[in-house]
């Protein structure tokens, strides 16, 4: 191979990548937070609502899950402002897209978790005289979190990686930073190698944080 690795160029522009990583995290955190809210509300609506509501939620989930994220990103950024009278910058548009996208995946995770809670635990909560809201916060939510945390970790990491799609509408996140360096310095291998390493390390850190959460909720200490 006639390619000499030269990382110096990349280090000189490292602020592009570091800033990119921070923006990636920001996009992920905001979108996931909104997605969790959407997911929770819809999962609750699904398990306690009627047939009609269930149909609507299922349609949302299926639609989103069968369309590539990149297409949704284009649709929301280029298409939506043409159809209705709204304006937003690329980052906001991406957050909207990823929130709706993550919501659809999280509904499924939360719903499966809620349905897997042993009925006896809910009966025990009722028998104590807990109100429906108290049963939700003190019994169902913690029980659900214990059940879904492992699956949730996967979903969160996956959604964090999905922020790279924002590069297609020039949101200056990590992948866009690597592309910028590539275009301006032609150090394609170095730029993408470092971006890869940064995704990897961040992914592991997220996983570590989620493991702490699993310990907090005493996951796995029930067998």
């Amino acid at each position, binding site marked *: 191979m006639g390619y000499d690795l030269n990382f110096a160029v990349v280090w000189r522009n490292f602020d592009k990548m570091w800033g990119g990583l921070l923006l990636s995290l920001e996009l992920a955190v905001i979108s996931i937070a909104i997605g969790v809210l959407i997911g929770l509300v819809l999962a609750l609506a699904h398990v306690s609502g009627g047939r009609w509501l269930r149909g609507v939620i299922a349609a949302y989930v299926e639609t989103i899950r069968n369309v590539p994220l990149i297409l949704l990103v284009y649709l929301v950024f280029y298409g939506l402002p043409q159809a209705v009278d709204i304006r937003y910058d690329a980052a906001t548009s991406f957050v909207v897209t990823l929130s709706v996208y993550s919501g659809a995946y999280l509904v499924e995770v939360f719903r499966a978790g809620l349905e897997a809670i042993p009925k006896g*635990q809910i009966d*025990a*909560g*009722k*028998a*104590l*005289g807990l*109100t429906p809201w108290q049963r939700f916060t003190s019994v169902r939510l913690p029980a659900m979190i214990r059940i879904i945390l492992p699956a949730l970790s996967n979903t969160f990491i996956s959604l964090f990686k999905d922020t790279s799609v924002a590069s297609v509408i020039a949101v200056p996140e990590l992948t866009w930073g690597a592309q910028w360096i590539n275009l301006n310095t032609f150090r394609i291998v170095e730029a993408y190698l470092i971006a890869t390493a940064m995704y990897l390390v961040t992914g592991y850190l997220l996983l570590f944080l989620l493991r702490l959460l699993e310990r907090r909720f*005493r996951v796995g200490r029930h067998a």
Partner: protein
Amino acid sequence: MTDPLLSIRGLRKSFGEIEVLKDVDLDVGRGEVVTVIGPSGSGKTTLLRCVNFLESYDAGSIRIDGEEVGFSAPGQRRNERTLARMRAETGMVFQSFNLFPHLTAAENIMLGLRKVRRKSRDEARAIAETWLDRVGLAHKADSLPAELSGGQQQRVGIARAVAMEPKVLLLDEITSALDPELVGEVLEVVRALAAEGMTMLMVTHEIAFARDASSRIVFMADGRIAAEGEPRELLANADDYPRLAAFLARFRASYF
């Protein structure tokens, strides 16, 4: 008997096409311990679950201290908040324990005390420790359910229910899921509660225990109360009731 604490009249309940409770009348007086026995599928669990409205019922009435449990008027189901308040008047111990797996033994007991009885954290903790001590588990206060034996879990289950100071305690086959050597420790706790005057309605297959610990035995068959009476008397005259005699034949060895 003065006004019964728990009064069930004309109770009917169906699951789909199948009528599971067919016109059940039952009174439980203050401090009384009533045991329900009967073959599998006769409606014992359903009866208990109607008393704290874990199951709704189709007709009849269930009153605790004169107050109708599930309905504000015939056909008028109480709202969820009122139901919650009514349910706090009864305690329930389950066959499968149903402890909250993410909470320690003490926290399991504290949850209702804090959320329903509005006790402070310290107060709730003190009450939980008192009850854990009463059931012989003071040293397990900070253990998770998964770290306890079945018998220990069930004793926490009992402590969780009685710590709320319910008017009536409902116990549904609370030793059925236990290894035989753990049954005694749990029944001992129930016996002590009975001696202290706790009003109880329990379902059990431990006929000898029912005979010794209860003031009355009720025999259910096919959704009806087929016989009832003072334990020793009823068991002695079981031959007057063919279905009871047939049912008891399976237990003969264990209670004579």
